[in-house]
């Protein structure tokens, strides 16, 4: 899984069977996530959003590149930094914002909040808050589809810090042992909250953790939506056709703090600025313009439309009612 750098007149994604429409959609999804998260930060500052709020800004290419090649009958699991992946899966912008506001019109009707977005109808299985807790659920989803003879795959996002948890290793072991169609996407943004990975992990290469289970593995530039898409296409094929799991380390970076309450004193300004030069949205936007797929004016129009969409989502969320008190005891049992 090395990055190939070929000089060619064809765009570098020419091998991927990506239509211009799809490329534009991927760009738009990333931009939507960015604008959504920027507004979420503002609304959090205004006290409209409570609890913890973990922003995806900087990591957009990882989520969009991983989700874009999926089918509708595939399943997605993720951790608590889940807004971006939900939007990439096509979950309703209004419903996502309303969930942050704790409103009954939210994607989890106000019962989950920022960390617990769900949409079973889209195979979006959440949205889980215990670091490293959810990977076995994703393996279980893959187990169930295989058991029922379906060729769906399940993908599982997780942060790099979760790979130090025991149950992560238990899951990789069984996923490989039982040949489960699951793809673990480890979003390595370098920091588990405020602790740099080098201070928390023995060993050099994170993806080598999968080596002990002889699982297909590798690292990918998670700041590059095309590279994400390419590696995911290979992993999805492996899962769907051969029932084999993959561990993919997506090297990425979050531009904001761990959560809204994080002053971020554990990173240097220089480091953050260095990564911002590799902004996944800007770089891909320039590339699309250079390839003649979008014009700069198209991007500006798109940005305006997205800002309007997010503004409307904020207004929708603000105007929506809180859940009625009567639901307090609903849905504890089926």
């Amino acid at each position, binding site marked *: 899984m090395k990055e190939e750098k070929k000089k060619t007149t064809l765009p570098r994604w020419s091998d991927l069977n990506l239509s211009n429409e799809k490329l534009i959609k991927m760009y738009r999804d990333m931009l939507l996530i960015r604008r959504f998260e920027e507004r979420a930060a503002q609304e959090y500052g205004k006290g409209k959003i409570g609890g913890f709020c973990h922003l995806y800004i900087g990591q957009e290419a990882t989520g969009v590149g991983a989700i874009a090649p999926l089918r509708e009958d595939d*399943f997605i*699991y993720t951790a608590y930094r889940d807004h971006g992946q939900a939007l990439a899966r096509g979950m309703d912008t209004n419903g996502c914002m309303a969930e942050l506001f704790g409103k009954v019109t939210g994607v*989890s*009707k*106000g*019962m*989950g909040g920022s960390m*617990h977005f*769900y*949409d*079973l109808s889209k195979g979006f*299985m*959440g*949205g*889980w*808050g*215990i670091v490293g*807790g*959810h*990977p*076995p*659920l*994703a*393996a*279980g*989803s893959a*187990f*169930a*589809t295989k*058991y*029922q003879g*379906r060729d769906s795959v399940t993908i599982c996002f997780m942060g790099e810090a979760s790979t130090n948890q*025991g*149950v992560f290793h*238990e*899951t990789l*072991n*069984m996923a490989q*042992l039982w040949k489960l169609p699951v793809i673990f996407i480890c979003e390595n943004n370098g920091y588990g909250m405020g602790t740099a990975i080098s201070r928390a992990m023995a060993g050099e290469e994170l993806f080598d953790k999968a080596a002990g289970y002889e699982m297909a593995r590798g690292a990918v530039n998670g700041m590059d939506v095309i590279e994400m898409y390419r590696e995911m296409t290979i992993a999805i094929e492996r899962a769907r056709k051969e029932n084999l799991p993959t561990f993919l380390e997506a090297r990425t970076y979050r531009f904001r703090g761990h959560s809204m309450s994080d002053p971020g004193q554990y990173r240097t300004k220089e480091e953050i600025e260095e990564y911002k030069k590799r902004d996944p949205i800007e770089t891909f936007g320039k590339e699309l313009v250079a390839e003649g797929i979008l014009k700069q004016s198209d991007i500006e129009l798109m940005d305006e439309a997205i800002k309007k969409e997010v503004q409307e989502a904020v207004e929708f969320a603000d105007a929506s009612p809180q859940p009625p008190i009567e*639901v307090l005891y*609903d*849905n*504890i*049992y*089926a």
Partner: protein
Amino acid sequence: MAVLQIREAINQAIDEEMARDTGVFIMGEEVAQYNGAYKVTQGLWKKYGDKRVIDTPITEAGFAGIGIGAAMTGIGVRPIVEMMTWNFAILAFDQIINHAAKARYMSAGQFKVPIVFRGPNGPAHMLSAQHSQALESMMAHVPGLIVMTPSTPYDAKGMLKSAIRDDNPVIFMESELMYGIKGEVPDEEYLVPIGKGDIKREGTDVTIIAWTKMVAVALKAADELQKEGINVEVIDPRTLRPLDEDLILESIRKTNRCVIVEDSWPYASVGTEIAHRIHTKAFDYLDAPVEKINSADIPMPYAENLEHEALPSPEKVIAAVKKVLYRK
């Protein structure tokens, strides 16, 4: 009617439900080729094969989570996860409490989690502290879980069949020392509903509430007390969450006195909750405060004499009954 051991009754329940619904499978340590650590799954692997009777690595949190994730997909999969004992299931409490019990609520009803976690619970014999503990109170504490504790072969089979068919996570707690206990089990199909208790012995003077192994202790105490003219009613709630409160309160309104027997620790136990409910909902009917007999509030010791001293016994129950009757 056949006379079966509890392990055979549980085996029949699993077998019948697997035959009835191809979405039902069982996974756990040694459940397949070894036929179960306590032989509960005897013959099932031979009958259903690798796909549906699945040996797992020793990795309780991992396979509990895989079961939960499988159940949540909503594509007709109903896992039974065998825990070799509930002592080991403590490793899986994060999966059970943080995922199985909360998925439905946090998603505002989008998910169902049809899964059964089953295995032996409670003190056994001379195993010391890590292998002898009753954990039902910890599980019953959690909204979103159903907790069932059978005491007879009849109940075990009918309750487990209901548990497997239910769309919620069910904690099904058996007893290592009871697997060989025999009892009549009907040949025709039957179900014991979730949340329904049973009167194991009718009586008029005192109500004893007990479940799993403690039912036998209560019944033995009741037989002894009968010789002294004390007529004891023994209630087995069978399901600890949701609790059959009506059955309990009805019995209290009749006998006006109550002793609760459980082999878990006394601090914040299911018995404490039951006593509280009786005190608040049938206070006017009580002629004495509710008494509670538990295992001693200690990690279980190995030495036989100390272990015996730590456990509830018919003698301790008899003394408690006499106390609520103000008799010597």
